[in-house]
């Protein structure tokens, strides 16, 4: 089967891409003025101590040896020690990853559930009030900073109307965290039947997810609209109409063929959200990877920052790999 062949070729390419990405991440540290040794030793260390730490970090070795050692460690899942939390970076990341996934997953799901039907509808209708509103919204949302929108939402729904909890993280302070299964609070609380944790975590999710969906959904919306519009104007839909097929059938044909671009944009959306989540997490004190990245920048925690950057690139590659594989499912011609 071609699917297997294609997939295996893509999977073979992955290590090469990873190697280049790791090279870039490795050299990012070289951008730093000075060297990281002193971040570990502090300003009052003896020369012996400095030399010892340099040896531990392999900084006394030639650069290609350093890179080889870095790769050796990374492959074993060792991203070094975080200067701020004094934990292995890998442990830190594993603790925070579910929080970020929770946000991105929900934002992608809602963006697709709202954006695709709205895009398809406006492509079919082509005129009218809803189209004008959607057009204006699409232009506006692309210009608004997500972190600012989040703050306005907090002011309106938390301070003014007291409808939703404030930006204090993922769950109420008095609510016990559900037993960890996936690490995503709302899923864990469903699985363990913990109703109190469920309502609290969902209430805390509303504002950050609404912010991300409001700002980033137009990406899906505009793409679905133009893909569907192109298909509705194409020869095969005209032919279907000429053959007397019902409008519903025409729309079905068009939508089926508009799927590949929509899938691509869903991948791009996920990639965007990974960056967008950084700022929104910071506003809501979400405690995910994004906030971890910001804290490591502010505290010059270079090992942590390196880990997050590397992981975000790996995540991106996986997303785009999935997008390519999804093409096989929706486009029979590739088979």
């Amino acid at each position, binding site marked *: 089967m071609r699917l297997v062949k294609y997939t295996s070729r893509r999977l073979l390419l992955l290590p090469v891409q990873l190697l280049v990405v790791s090279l870039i991440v490795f050299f990012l540290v070289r951008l730093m003025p000075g060297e990281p040794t002193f971040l570990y030793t502090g300003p009052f260390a003896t020369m012996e101590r400095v030399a010892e730490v340099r040896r531990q970090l392999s900084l006394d070795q030639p650069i290609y040896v350093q890179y080889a050692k870095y790769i050796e460690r990374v492959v074993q899942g060792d991203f070094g020690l975080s200067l701020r939390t004094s934990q292995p970076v890998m442990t830190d990341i594993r603790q925070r990853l579910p929080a970020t996934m929770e946000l991105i997953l929900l934002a992608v799901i809602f963006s697709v559930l709202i954006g695709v039907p709205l895009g398809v509808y406006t492509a079919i209708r082509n005129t009218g009030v809803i189209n004008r509103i959607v057009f204006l919204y699409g232009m506006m949302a692309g210009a608004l900073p997500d972190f600012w929108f989040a*703050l306005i939402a907090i002011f309106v729904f938390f301070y003014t109307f007291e409808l939703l909890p404030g930006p204090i993280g993922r769950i109420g302070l008095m609510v016990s965290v559900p037993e960890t299964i996936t690490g995503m609070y709302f899923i864990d609380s469903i699985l363990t039947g913990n109703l109190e944790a469920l309502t609290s975590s969902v209430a805390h999710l509303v504002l950050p997810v609404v912010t991300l969906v409001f700002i980033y959904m137009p990406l899906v919306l505009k793409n679905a609209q133009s893909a569907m519009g192109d298909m509705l104007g194409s020869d095969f839909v005209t032919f279907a109409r000429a053959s007397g097929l019902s409008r519903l059938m025409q729309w079905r044909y068009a939508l089926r063929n508009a799927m590949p671009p929509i899938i691509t944009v869903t991948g791009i959306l996920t990639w965007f959200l990974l*960056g*967008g989540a950084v700022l929104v997490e910071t506003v809501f004190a979400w405690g995910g990877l994004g906030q971890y*990245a910001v804290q490591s920048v502010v505290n010059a925690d270079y090992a942590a920052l390196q880990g997050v950057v590397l992981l975000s*690139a790996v995540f991106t590659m996986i997303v785009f790999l999935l997008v390519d594989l999804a093409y096989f499912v929706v486009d029979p011609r590739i088979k």
Partner: protein
Amino acid sequence: MATTPGSVITIAEVGAFDEFVRFARRRPSFMVGMTIVAISLFLALFGPYIGTYPTETALPGDTLQPPSWNHPFGTDVSNMDIFSRVIAAPRIDLTIALVSTAIAFIGGVLLGVISGYFGGGGKGIARYVSEGIMRGSDIIQAFPVFIFALALVGFRGPGAENVIAALAFLNIPYFLRITRSAVLQIRERPFVEAARCAGNSEWRIAFVHVLPNALTPPLANISPTIGFSILLTSGLSFVGAGVPVPTPEWGSMIAIGAPNMMTGQWWTALFPGIALGVTILGYGLMGAGLNDFLDPTKKR
């Protein structure tokens, strides 16, 4: 002045400028965009001198005053006048956006011409250079933009120069790709073959004959890239990795106002955010308009 209704404007009368004016009249959104861009450029030049209050030092008196006649946008937690700071901010925000976009434009166009002209069917070392350029830009784009920008600035430390360097670096692949795809079409045109027959070297053809004809798409992309750069700069400053604090900058002003939004002082973050959104929208609208103006199939 006696233009009677029905008088015909001959084509010879319509110069490029008249054509531009006529196009702009038909597109109110383009006019709005150009107005916003003009105001932002004006404020970048003169904004810091217009406000009546100092923009980087605290005033004596009550902090967090709501909007009033003296302080149209209120004052912040250090009792700095928000209006004076909002109109002073374009200086740093636009400087960063314009300089980084200019660098990205030049770098992206040059690399795009090389990779487009010598790519694919090219021969010798130029072909490998072309492939290398493309794979390099693939790798840069494998990183989520904001996280990569954060990391670049994080390792270099905050400051306008480092933000400029990071944004220029991240925007090069966009200009590169757009230029490359234009060059790939242009290099097949007969005039390129003619230039070759006239004895021009390949490098001369690429930079003297092909490059000027491939500039339209990257030029149209300048305006939205400026808007995007302003957005990224403000995001970096918001988390403390961009422009350091007392300098008036919209993102850092929103960061200063963020804690106040939870206690009801809405004016602290609202106004810098509106200024930011309107400016980015303006550059987006101008870019969309220019794109249609430069594309002959969409002009009518």
